[in-house]
């Protein structure tokens, strides 16, 4: 989920631009669009003719989700809750993991710019704990990689910003227990 402004606005969040508003989509539609654009990118990587619009669409979707993380983290957090449940199919759980990671990254930017996002940040460790017990090993592995990346980011951030210390500690605790599961 990129924070770089995309070159084309195919998707948007809450009428910020001219594309399809992801805030009006159901969670499943959003997942399907993400999955489709990933598969289309795969097709191009494997030799299908390059089409800028497909790359633009994927970038734009990532950017719109990034904007959602910043403008309405509760909305994204609810999606994370929805998708990280173990009864969801594997691809949807993996989408939940990527949303959770994107949310952490965006909130760190928010915090750095002075917005207080601690409430949302502290509500996320339960999602990581749930993922640490995911029955599907592929989901657990992917989630662990994401957790390591996020925990590392917050550990580094906590050196300069004291408020990140609590999040970094909470993430470390999940990580430590994960290794024990």
């Amino acid at each position: 989920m990129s924070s770089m402004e995309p070159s084309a606005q195919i998707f948007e969040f809450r009428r910020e631009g001219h594309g399809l508003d992801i805030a009006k989509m159901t969670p499943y539609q959003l997942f399907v669009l993400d999955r489709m654009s990933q598969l289309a990118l795969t097709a191009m990587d494997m030799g299908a003719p390059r089409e800028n619009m497909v790359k633009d669409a994927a970038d734009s979707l990532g950017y719109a989700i990034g904007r959602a993380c910043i403008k309405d983290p509760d909305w994204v957090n609810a999606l994370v809750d929805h998708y990280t449940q173990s009864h969801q199919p594997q691809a949807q759980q993996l989408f939940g993991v990527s949303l959770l990671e994107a949310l952490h990254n965006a909130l760190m930017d928010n915090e750095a710019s002075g917005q207080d996002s601690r409430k949302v940040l502290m509500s996320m460790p339960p999602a990581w704990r749930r993922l640490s017990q995911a029955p599907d090993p592929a989901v657990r592995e992917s989630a662990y990689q994401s957790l390591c990346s996020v925990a590392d980011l917050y550990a580094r951030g906590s050196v300069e910003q004291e408020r990140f210390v609590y999040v970094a500690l909470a993430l470390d605790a999940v990580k430590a227990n994960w290794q024990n599961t």
Partner: protein
Amino acid sequence: MSDVQQSAPKFEFGPNGVGLNVLEMPPHELFVLHRVSALAMKAVDSGVAPRDPVVREFTEALTGALVQASLENPGRVYGLATSYTAPDQPPGEQLFGVKLFELFHTSWLNCEPVNLDVGHVLAGVPSTWGRLSRTLTNPQVRAGAYESLQAVASLYDRVSLDQGELAPAAVALARVEENWHTA
């Protein structure tokens, strides 16, 4: 965010559905979704990506919505197809316009019996493809359009056996097909 929990896990397009409405989408977004869907199908069909029910579901939902839109708002879909096949459009857009025309024309013929009250829609079919045979110049687009024309013409041929009123259009369409390569 209670609506997240309440939303049905459905994905459909269409004026009466709960999904994204193809008629409300800006034409470019509709085109991009179509291309994304076509490429994702290609990834799955060629074995590059694992079989994924989402891909077929998405593609069928998009096609279904365009069929529904063709029947409920023919003027709008015809207008979209016309603007995408304009000579100044890039080949990708033109091919999408051709696909829209194919879908538009076959949608009406797949209704049983064909509703002849929409004679103006049906009567315009040969002239539409005749125009495309003259205005499309890109070889790849022409090849794609010829395939679409064959699909429409063969359906006309079949349906006109039961509904004789469609025979003149079927004959005219067959003539366009014959003359395609010399147009």
